[in-house]
């Protein structure tokens, strides 16, 4: 099943690999022009390659001053609109709070939460004018459940859910929906960085008894970004194999 995104422009942050790549591919399969962002030139080139003419990759460091506004403004000029924004770019800097450095805290909050605020602010004006828009923010199951060693990440992801609800209420009347998808443990480079101990503990808690696939997150994102999901806003869809039911 693939939703139709013919004639639409989708912007996906952190699209080089993992979940972001699966999301960008789902939009491209639905006929959208997809702009996927990466932090490096080589990442952007890799995105252009897999998009295969249905858009392209571009370099964006979401924490660089002015970078987000500049990119969104260029895209608005080039395509005239952005229909879909997926805030997927995220990082982890795990450490027990006793040992956590300010830098580890700040970089996770900046990339995973502050950048979401900036991206949304940059695209919302155009969406409101068009009376149409779909914003999907990628959260995490740990934003709801907590996870030792990830106080920074959990705080950012929980913050993202509150942000999603507030913005959803602000702009619902303009035909713009804002939702979140909260993945559980998905088979990506990010979860490969977990320690064996973390991994074992996590597996015991997943009724589906496996990691999720990036495509399974993309399916939920694709649905929320589709036209037919227009009456769903401020919602978080949890995609976690049953590990947490909210």
């Amino acid at each position, binding site marked *: 099943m693939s939703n139709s995104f013919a004639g639409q422009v989708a912007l996906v942050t952190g699209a080089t690999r993992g979940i972001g790549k699966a999301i960008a591919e789902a939009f491209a399969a639905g006929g959208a022009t997809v702009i996927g962002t990466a932090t490096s030139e080589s990442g952007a080139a890799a995105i252009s390659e897999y998009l295969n003419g249905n858009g392209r990759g571009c370099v964006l460091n979401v924490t660089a001053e002015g970078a987000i506004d500049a990119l969104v403004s260029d895209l608005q000029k080039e395509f005239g609109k952005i229909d879909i924004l997926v805030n997927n770019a995220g990082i982890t800097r795990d450490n027990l709070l006793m040992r956590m450095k300010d830098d580890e805290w700040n970089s996770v909050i900046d990339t995973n939460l502050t950048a979401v605020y900036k991206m949304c602010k940059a695209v919302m*004006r155009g969406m*409101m004018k068009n009376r149409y828009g779909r914003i999907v923010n990628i959260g995490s199951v740990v934003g709801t459940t907590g996870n030792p060693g990830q106080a920074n990440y959990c705080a950012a992801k929980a913050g993202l859910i509150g942000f999603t609800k507030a913005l959803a209420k*602000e*702009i619902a*009347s*303009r035909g713009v929906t804002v939702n979140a998808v909260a993945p559980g443990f998905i088979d990506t480079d990010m979860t490969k960085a977990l320690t064996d101990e973390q991994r074992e503990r996590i597996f015991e808690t997943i009724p589906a008894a496996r990691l999720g696939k990036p495509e399974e997150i993309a399916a939920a994102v694709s649905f929320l970004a589709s036209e037919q999901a227009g009456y769903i806003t401020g919602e978080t869809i949890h995609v976690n194999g049953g590990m947490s039911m909210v």
Partner: protein
Amino acid sequence: MSTIEERVKKIIIEQLGVKEEEVKPEASFENDLGADSLDTVELVMALEEEFETEIPDEEAEKIRTVQAAIDYINKHSA
């Protein structure tokens, strides 16, 4: 070249989706022209764009009528 008054009125008509005859000088955006808080923010942003100016929040809050908008722009545009 249209006057500031005409340009301001045009933006109000476009942003709020109201008729020209409704845009009287004393008309209040919220009470007479059916604007909600988001509409007034969008209106202020549209004025900023049209007149290439930045309207501070505390000034924007005072722009509640058609005349107030015209006065503000008259006073602050070069």
